[in-house]
């Protein structure tokens, strides 16, 4: 599993997919957000002049994960911002509260249309949580 950001990209013919891991659910969700931004080519160390608080819910963990990542894509799109800092402040199986940090991004080069549920299952391993996420590009 790749270094600090806790994800690795996996092969997918038409779209993009990545496996993400975290020591707990909060870390898994934060790493998934980093992965989403990294595979769009957004550098991890950008300025963090913008801060947004978000609350997301879902009927189960997988729905919560998809809704969280789609929330980030939505905020990127409507505010024309890119994010590189993700702090999951509180999380349960059906809701989370988090803060995003990033910067305005005048030239939108977002490449992901949406995060999918395809084959999605959040697994609890002996020492970590893991999920493989397919995104539509």
């Amino acid at each position, binding site marked *: 599993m790749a270094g600090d950001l806790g994800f690795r990209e996996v092969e997918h*013919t038409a779209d993009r997919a990545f496996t993400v891991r975290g020591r707990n659910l909060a870390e898994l969700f934060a790493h998934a957000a980093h992965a989403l931004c990294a595979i769009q080519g957004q550098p991890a160390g950008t300025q963090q002049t913008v801060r947004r608080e978000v609350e997301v819910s879902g009927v189960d963990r997988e729905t919560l994960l998809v809704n969280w990542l789609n929330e980030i894509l939505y905020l990127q799109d409507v505010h024309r911002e890119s994010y590189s800092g993700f702090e999951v402040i509180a999380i349960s199986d059906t809701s989370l509260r988090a803060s995003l940090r990033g910067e305005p991004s005048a030239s939108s080069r977002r*490449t992901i*249309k949406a995060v999918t549920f395809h084959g999605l299952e959040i697994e609890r391993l002996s020492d970590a949580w893991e999920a493989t996420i397919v995104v539509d590009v």
Partner: protein
Amino acid sequence: MGKPAPSRAIAKSDFRRVSEQVWELPRDFRDDMRAPARLYADEALLEAALTDNSVEQLVNTSTLPGIVKYAIAMPDIHQGYGFPIGGVVATRLPQGIISPGGVGYDINCGVRLLASEASVEEISPFLGDLASALYHNCPSGVGVHGEIKLQDAELDKVLVEGARWARRRGLARDEDLEHTEEFGAMPGADPEYVSHRARERGRGQIGTLGAGNHFIEVDAVTAVYDETAAERLGLLPGQAVVQIHCGSRGFGHQVCEDYVARFQKTVHDYGIELPDRELVCAPFESEEGQQYFRAMACAANFAFANRQALAHYIRRSFEEVLAGKVPAFDLHQVYDIAHNMAKIEEHEVGGTRMQLCVHRKGATRAFGPGSPGLPDDLRDLGQPVLIPGSMGTASYVLIGTRGSMEQTFGSTCHGAGRVWSRTRAKKTVRGQDLRQELESRGIAVRAGSMPGLAEEAPQAYKDVSRVVDVVERAGIGKKVARLEPIAVVKG
């Protein structure tokens, strides 16, 4: 949710060969199948399909409640999410389901073909300027916004009227609407079922191209296979034509997201078990199913209006560059087709006419001669079908056939179909090298992103000619003309 997919890989020996181009996995191949699964392919394309998870995804679609005949995949099948790309599933109404994942995020992604009065020879001296004008006038990139900004009341009109809205705004001609699937306005659209978020994402994106595999391409007509049909469509050898490939942008993505997330619960409420959560669905006649259908129709109309606005910008670009230099260069619309849609259609199944919800995910409607919904001037000919190839290769114009009505719910393939992942394409091909190679062949390239260009390298796709030959031999499409690119514009 549901039972797990089989752990063993699907092999060629699991298929029964129904005919030279049709391969079938019988209904008892997996316990949860509700119908057999059929794949249109020659041997090489079948083998290519078995290299990723696309055939397993095809089998998954055969579990959808209400499915009739078969789950079908076209020869350009490749791995998607939920449905394979190149998948067709029809469910019987009123009991059958509708699945947002069976349409996908880019609702009414489609292709429009415009044909110029000018020949390639006439426009060639100005090709670089023309490519630059197209790139400048047609904004690209996933989140990019265009020059049209819509308030809610006006956006509602787009969602109900589609390309007819563009006609009122002076962005379309009557003939454009006549030569567009659903005449440019999908019935049943109701903006009440569209979220505020979808509106926010869509309001600035009419007249924008997007990214990924979306493009504008100027092509030459390099071969005509059916002179009569080509003449009826206004296509001549050596003529310059323009293809637009794009869809409903952030608006459609959000509509799909909204309903796929909502249906995660709905599917349990209706006791539907599925092998993949992306296939979530609801009975078509249920409140949830109807709300999705009406929101999807809004997104479809957004896409028709979007391609119409782009067509207007393309005409403007031709005017800017060619006026006073080329005697006649006007662009008439050959046709506009959707390849991600769920539609209510009547088809014959086992000798009975029945109303179906036909999901086409990366597949094109290909109605045969005499079918309802065709323009008056083409009704006896059949529906034009536009099959874009990979960048730098060829594209095809086909017409729908009686065979497509009998075999595939009036459907055929939609493109070449990927074989390489985007990661592999970028590792293997440098965008700058690809651009130079295309330009050395006389193709002008304007692209916003070199890695994005590399992802769409022709090597990453199947041979479109082989795909089209399969559908023609199977009788689900008839070749009319071949197009080859002379200028490519990408996000």
